[in-house]
C-alpha cells in the first residue's frame, strides 16, 4: 500500500468515527514522515479529541503549525483548540511554560488572527487567552483608563498597523508633517498604555503596499508613499528604542518574505477590512507568537550542530581533510559555506553554539584547525562534543555543562535517524527539519523563529566567550585540588550598582528568563520594575562579575523594600552561568549594608517553589536565615538578624560598590 492509500484508509476510518482505528492507521501512514502536512495533523488531532486524549490532540495541533500555512486548516485547528479549552476548564498544553492574556487591536479586522495567534502560541509553549477589539479601536482603548482593554488586564497588547492609517490627511500635510504625525500618533498610544497598565506592547510597523505611483523613482522622491512608509517605520524603531518595552513586529519584512501579492488581498480588504490576506495570517501569527514567547523569556539559547554533512560535505573520518566539501568552487561546498556563514551570524548575535558529532574527537577538530575555508572556528563553540555516545545523551550533557535548560537547545543534523532519535528521547529540544540538499539549510535556519529575541545587549554579543569560559572552568575545576583555591585563582571582581537606564534592558531580560536561581520567579515588565523602584525604602541592586577568563556582564540582581521594619527581598535571581561562585554572598552582603544604612536590623525573604528552582530551596537556610512561616502553597518565609548574625560577604569576590548607602 502506498503512503497516500494508507492516509486515505485512515481518513475513511475517521469518517466512520472509528477514531481508535483511524489513529492506528495514521500512525502507520506517518511513521516515516518528519513533518506531516497541516491538514493531516488536523485530522489526527480531531481523532485524538474524539477519543478523549486531549494532551495528544494538543500535541498534534502544535505540530500542525509546523506542517504548513493553509488558512482553513489553521482556522479549524484553532477552533478545535478553543473547543478543547472551553470543554475542559483547567486543561493546559502539556508543555506550556508560560501563560498570559493577550489583547489584540489595530487598524484592521483581527477576528481571524486572534484564534490563529492562540494556536501559534501553543506551539511555542505559551498558553494564551486572546481578546480582540473591533478594528480602529486602539486609540480610544489606549487613551481611556476605563476602556475594555484595560479592564481585560492584558499581559501583552498587540497593535496591528496598516498603511491606510497614513492616508487620512496625505493631501493637506507636508511629507515631514505626515511622517511626524503618524509616528507621534503611535508613540502616544504606546505611552498611554505605559501609563495605564503594565502590559508589554507588541506593535507592527507598516507594510508598504504594492502599488507605487513613482515606481522605480520612489526611493529618490520624498513624497512617494513608499518613502513615507519607510520613514515612519524608521521613526517607530527609534521611538521604540527610546521608550523601551515595545517590541516591533517587522511586517514590512515578513510581507516581503511571503511576497506582497500574497500578503495583500484587496477584495478581502474592501469586503471586510482584512489588512492581511488569509493566506498570510498563519505566517503573521507564527511571528507574533515567537515574539510573545521571546517577551516571556523563552528565546532559545543554543544551536547544537552535527558536523559531517551538516557543517561540511562528506565524512571527515573517511574522506579526510582534503576530501570534505567546504568553501568556494562547487555548488555543494558553497552551500555548506553559506550555512556556516549563517550560523556564524547567529553566533555573533548571541546564540551560543555547540558541536554534537559522532566522530573521533581529533578527527572532528581537524577541519576547524587546518582547513583554510572553514568559517566557523573552534573558538565559536561553547562546547565541542565528538564521541560515539548517542546524541540524546550528549545533548543532555551539553545542556548540563552549560547549565541551560534542555528546552533552550535547538538541534541541526542532516541525518533523519538522529533527528528522530533526539525528538523521541529529548522532546524538549527543537529539532530543525534539515532538507536533503544542503542548499536548503540556510532557509531552514532563516525560517526558524525560536531564536527571535526582543532585546540585544552587550552581554549577548559576548555570550560564546562566557559559555566557553564556563566549560573551560569545568575542566579546570576538575584538575584544581580544592574548590577554595580554585575560586581564589579566578580573581573575581564584582561591581554592584543600582538599576538605571543603562542596565534596565539586561535586568528586564534576566527577570524574563531566569529559572533556576530565582527565589520568587516574578516575571516583571520594565513598568513593574520602575513602579517597584518608587516604593518605600526600595533597594535595587545589580551585580556585574568579571574573572581572569571573561567578563560575565550583569549576572545577578535583588529587588527589596521596607516591609514591617525589615528589608524584604522581593525578587532575587542570578544567571545560571555563575552558580557556585559565591556571587549571592557578595550581593546579599551589600543588601545587609543597605538595610543597616536605613536603620533596619533584619532581612526577610521568601522562596516560592516552581518546577525549576529547587536549586535555591535551601538558599536562605544556607545563609542562616530562620524559617518563620510555611504556607500551604509551598511558599516559605525566612528572616535574618543582621545584628546578631553579622554581615555577609564573599570570601572570593572583590566588590566595588557604586550604590549610595
Amino acid at each position, binding site marked *: 500500500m502506498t503512503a497516500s492509500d494508507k492516509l486515505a484508509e485512515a481518513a475513511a476510518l475517521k469518517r466512520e468515527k472509528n477514531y481508535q482505528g483511524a489513529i492506528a492507521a495514521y500512525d502507520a501512514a506517518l511513521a516515516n514522515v518528519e513533518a506531516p502536512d497541516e491538514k493531516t495533523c488536523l485530522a489526527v488531532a480531531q481523532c485524538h479529541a474524539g477519543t478523549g486524549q486531549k494532551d495528544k490532540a494538543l500535541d498534534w495541533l502544535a505540530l500542525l503549525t509546523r506542517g504548513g500555512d493553509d488558512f*482553513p486548516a489553521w482556522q479549524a485547528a484553532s477552533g478545535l483548540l478553543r473547543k478543547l479549552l472551553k470543554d475542559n476548564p483547567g486543561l493546559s498544553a502539556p508543555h506550556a511554560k508560560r501563560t498570559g492574556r493577550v489583547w489584540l487591536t489595530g487598524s484592521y479586522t483581527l477576528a481571524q488572527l486572534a484564534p490563529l495567534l492562540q494556536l501559534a502560541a501553543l506551539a511555542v509553549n505559551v498558553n494564551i487567552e486572546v481578546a480582540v477589539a473591533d478594528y480602529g479601536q486602539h486609540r480610544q482603548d489606549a487613551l481611556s483608563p476605563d476602556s475594555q482593554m484595560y479592564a481585560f488586564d492584558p499581559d501583552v497588547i498587540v497593535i496591528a498597523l496598516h498603511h491606510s492609517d497614513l492616508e487620512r490627511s496625505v493631501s493637506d500635510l507636508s511629507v515631514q508633517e505626515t511622517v511626524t504625525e503618524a509616528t507621534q500618533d503611535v508613540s502616544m498610544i504606546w505611552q498611554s498604555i505605559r501609563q495605564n497598565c503594565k502590559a508589554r506592547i507588541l506593535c507592527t510597523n507598516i507594510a508598504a503596499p504594492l502599488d507605487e505611483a513613482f515606481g522605480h523613482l520612489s526611493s529618490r522622491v520624498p513624497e512617494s508613499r513608499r518613502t513615507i512608509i519607510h520613514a515612519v517605520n524608521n521613526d517607530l524603531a527609534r521611538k521604540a528604542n527610546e521608550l523601551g518595552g515595545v517590541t516591533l513586529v517587522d511586517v514590512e519584512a515578513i510581507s516581503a518574505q511571503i511576497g506582497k501579492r500574497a500578503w495583500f488581498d484587496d477584495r478581502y480588504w474592501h469586503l471586510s477590512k482584512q489588512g492581511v490576506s488569509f493566506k498570510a495570517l498563519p505566517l503573521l501569527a507564527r511571528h507574533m507568537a515567537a515574539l510573545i514567547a521571546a517577551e516571556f523569556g523563552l528565546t532559545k539559547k543554543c544551536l547544537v550542530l552535527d558536523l559531517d554533512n551538516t557543517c561540511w560535505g562528506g565524512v571527515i573520518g573517511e574522506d579526510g581533510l582534503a576530501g570534505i566539501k567546504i568553501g568556494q568552487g562547487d555548488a555543494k561546498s558553497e552551500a555548506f559555506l553559506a550555512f556556516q556563514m549563517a550560523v556564524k551570524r547567529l553566533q555573533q548575535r548571541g546564540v551560543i553554539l555547540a558541536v554534537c558529532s559522532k566522530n573521533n574527537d581529533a578527527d572532528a577538530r581537524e577541519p576547524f584547525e587546518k582547513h583554510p575555508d572553514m568559517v566557523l572556528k573552534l573558538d565559536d563553540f561553547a562546547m565541542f562534543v565528538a564521541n560515539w555516545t548517542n546524541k540524546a545523551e550528549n545533548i543532555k550533557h551539553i545542556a548540563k555543562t552549560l547549565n541551560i535548560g534542555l528546552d533552550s537547545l535547538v538541534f541541526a543534523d542532516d541525518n533523519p535517524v538522529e533527528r528522530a532519535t533526539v525528538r523521541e528521547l529529548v522532546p524538549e529540544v527543537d529539532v530543525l527539519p534539515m532538507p536533503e540538499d544542503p542548499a536548503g539549510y540556510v532557509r531552514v535556519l532563516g525560517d526558524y523563529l525560536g531564536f527571535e529575541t526582543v532585546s540585544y545587549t552587550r552581554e549577548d554579543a559576548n555570550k560564546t566567550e562566557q559559555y566557553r569560559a564556563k566549560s573551560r572552568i569545568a575542566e579546570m575545576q576538575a584538575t584544581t585540588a580544592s574548590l577554595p583555591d580554585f575560586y581564589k585563582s579566578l580573581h573575581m571582581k564584582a561591581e554592584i550598582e543600582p538599576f538605571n537606564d543603562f542596565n534596565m534592558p539586561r535586568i528586564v531580560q534576566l527577570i524574563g528568563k531566569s529559572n533556576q536561581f530565582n527565589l520568587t520567579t516574578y516575571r516583571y515588565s520594565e513598568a513593574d520594575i520602575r513602579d517597584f523602584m518608587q516604593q518605600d525604602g526600595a533597594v535595587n541592586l545589580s551585580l556585574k562579575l568579571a574573572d581572569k577568563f571573561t567578563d560575565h556582564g550583569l549576572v545577578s540582581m535583588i529587588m527589596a523594600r521596607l516591609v514591617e521594619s525589615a528589608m524584604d527581598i522581593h525578587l532575587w535571581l542570578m544567571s545560571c552561568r555563575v552558580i557556585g561562585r559565591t556571587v549571592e554572598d557578595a550581593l546579599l552582603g551589600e543588601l545587609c549594608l543597605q538595610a543597616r544604612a536605613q536603620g533596619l536590623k533584619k532581612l526577610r525573604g521568601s522562596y516560592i517553589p516552581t518546577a525549576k528552582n529547587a536549586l535555591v530551596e535551601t538558599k536562605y537556610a544556607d545563609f542562616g536565615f530562620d524559617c518563620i512561616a510555611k504556607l500551604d502553597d509551598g511558599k516559605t518565609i525566612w528572616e535574618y538578624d543582621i545584628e546578631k548574625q553579622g554581615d555577609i560577604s564573599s570570601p572570593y569576590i572583590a566588590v566595588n560598590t557604586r550604590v549610595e548607602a
Partner: protein
Amino acid sequence: MSTETRLNEVFQTVFLDDDLELSDDMTAADVDGWDSLAHINLMFAIEQEFGFQFPGNELAELPNIGALKAFIDSKTR
C-alpha cells in the same frame, strides 16, 4: 471527487463539524455558526479549494447550497 463531496469537506473544515451534510435546499440559517466571520472564512476556503474568485460578495447573494454548487460548477467547468 465530485463538487458535492469537495464542498462538503470544505464546510466540515470551516465549521469544524464532521457530521455536517449539505443538501441543496440548505441556507446559511440552517448551518450552526454561519455568521459574518464564518462567512468570510468560508468564502476563502471555497475559493482556495476550487481555484476561482467570487466577484465582490457574490457568495452572500446565492440563495442556497444548490445555487452555490451550480455557481461553482459554472466557474470551474
